[in-house]
């Protein structure tokens, strides 16, 4: 019995990578990490603190090519005889884990939010409106862990790092260009999110949302109509047909709280709603509610956060 955790280390170690290793450790068996990417040896060795007993790195894979990553994971699974393979359910796992599942004929559970009980793994279904329990019928299981559902836990010590040739083969996907807006906090990983909807009346009014977000160190998000009319970029659209997020704090201003919007955000730990309409459905899903005009409340909240940060 052993566990293999795939993480991507192209841009160093992201929080969701540490979550996946911590989760791997919780499964109880010996944990080997297999990674592709350019992180240096001491960075990779630090994964031992989260529970890895060994890291295997294939540096021949320099992009996120899911075909190459799947080959490397399969080779590592064959080499370690792993009975469970763990991914973090991010954009890389969404492309590579299904390929590994077919290669190994091993059942894939995606969006896991709990450790397996026997053969059953708890997952999010119906866009966060319910949980499901998935049974894997194969000897090897693949679990893709929903980001932000387990916190990384350090405690162990650094582990060994081995260079590994996973016979990745040629990349099928050629990268032409990568655009990452400077300074923005990626929404799917954000712990704090400030979001706004049609109640803000126009794109020119988003300054106060961005200010509050930057004061908190939060990412920004929006409702679907706001992205559809082009007030905000598509990648900020949260909900059933946008990004599903589960931050620690979700602040929603001028969003009515339609069922499709709630589906993407009801995994948030704490929800704050600002709405002029005391009857807005969002209040039913909120922890803290403010009946008021976002144009007054949001700047006031930003000031209060500033004051708090200065005092702490």
């Amino acid at each position, binding site marked *: 019995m052993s566990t293999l955790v795939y993480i991507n280390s192209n841009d160093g170690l992201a929080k969701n990578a540490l979550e996946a290793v911590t989760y791997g450790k919780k499964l109880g068996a010996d944990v080997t990490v297999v990674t592709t990417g350019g992180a240096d040896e001491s960075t990779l060795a630090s994964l031992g603190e989260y529970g890895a007993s060994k890291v295997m790195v294939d540096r021949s894979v320099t992009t996120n090519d899911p075909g190459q990553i799947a080959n490397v994971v399969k080779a590592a699974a064959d080499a370690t005889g792993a009975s469970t393979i763990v991914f973090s359910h991010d954009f890389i796992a969404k*492309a590579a884990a299904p390929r590994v599942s077919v290669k190994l004929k091993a059942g894939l559970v995606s969006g896991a939010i709990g450790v397996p009980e026997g053969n059953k793994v708890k997952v999010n279904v119906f866009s966060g409106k319910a949980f499901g329990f*998935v049974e894997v019928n194969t000897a090897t299981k693949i679990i893709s862990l929903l980001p932000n559902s387990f916190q990384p836990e350090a405690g162990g010590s650094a582990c060994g790092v081995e260079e590994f040739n996973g016979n990745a083969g040629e990349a099928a*996907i*050629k990268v*032409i260009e990568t655009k990452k807006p400077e300074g923005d906090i990626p929404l799917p990983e954000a712990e704090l999110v400030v979001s706004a909807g049609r109640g803000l009346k126009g794109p020119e009014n988003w300054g106060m949302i961005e200010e509050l977000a930057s004061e908190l160190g939060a990412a920004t998000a929006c409702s679907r109509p706001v992205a559809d009319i082009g007030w905000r970029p598509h990648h900020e659209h949260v909900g059933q*047909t946008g990004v599903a997020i589960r931050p620690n704090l979700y602040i929603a201003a001028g969003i009515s709280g339609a069922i499709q919007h709630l*589906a993407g955000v009801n995994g948030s730990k704490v929800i704050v709603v600002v709405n002029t309409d005391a009857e807005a459905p969002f209040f039913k899903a909120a922890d803290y509610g403010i009946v008021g005009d976002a144009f007054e409340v949001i700047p006031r909240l930003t000031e209060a956060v500033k004051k708090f940060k200065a005092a702490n």
Partner: protein
Amino acid sequence: MKILVCISKSPDTTSKIAFTDGDTKFDENGVQYIVNPYDEWYALVRALELKEAGGGSVSIITVGTAADDAVIRKALAIGADEAVRIDAAPTDAYYTAMQIAEYAKSNGFDLVMTGKETINYNGSQVGGMIAEGMDVPFVSLASRLEVNGSTATLDTEIVGGIQTVEVSLPAVVSCAKGMAEQRIPNMRGIMAARTKPLNVVAPADIDALTSFTSYALPPAKSECKMIDPENMDELVALLHNEAKVI
């Protein structure tokens, strides 16, 4: 160009989510099925745009029983040329994907398109599995797709940004927001859909790898605490001391 678009049914987004038979089955009572929005708004509409611009054909495929024909007709009304239904209950993502891969391999498609996930199971599994089954490249979470001869150029979502990539066809692409604009079927489309070919194909012999054994609803939210709009210091204090999120 021959395009195959994978269509799944999903409950209407306003459906009440409930379970029956000791929480082992989704309660379909009163539930309206729609075409999964990602499949319809993004994959199917972009496929139709590519056909309109460059010729070829658009087929839709679903793994399902005769009960799903109504949802297939809805997709045909948006504008595909023909539909294929693999006549079996889609027991898991692997089973579904392998059925589609078998069909796609023996019918020579240049491009297979899926939505990025279904809104009921949210697995994001089928597209990648089809690609592996066909042994072709898979580009996931694409928000733009252009085809030039046998090369496709795509924008894909990555953490904190967008990556532009190129891939040779045939390939499988999963489609996300930005790819196309939703189309509302018109009367002509709805009439035409009634007579478009819907080919029912016997399933291949494949075993599912996973199964859903039960479901649960999340615990109800506790009462919402109302805060004076004049007093944002109080909210910040609560977020810090009570909720412990800042």
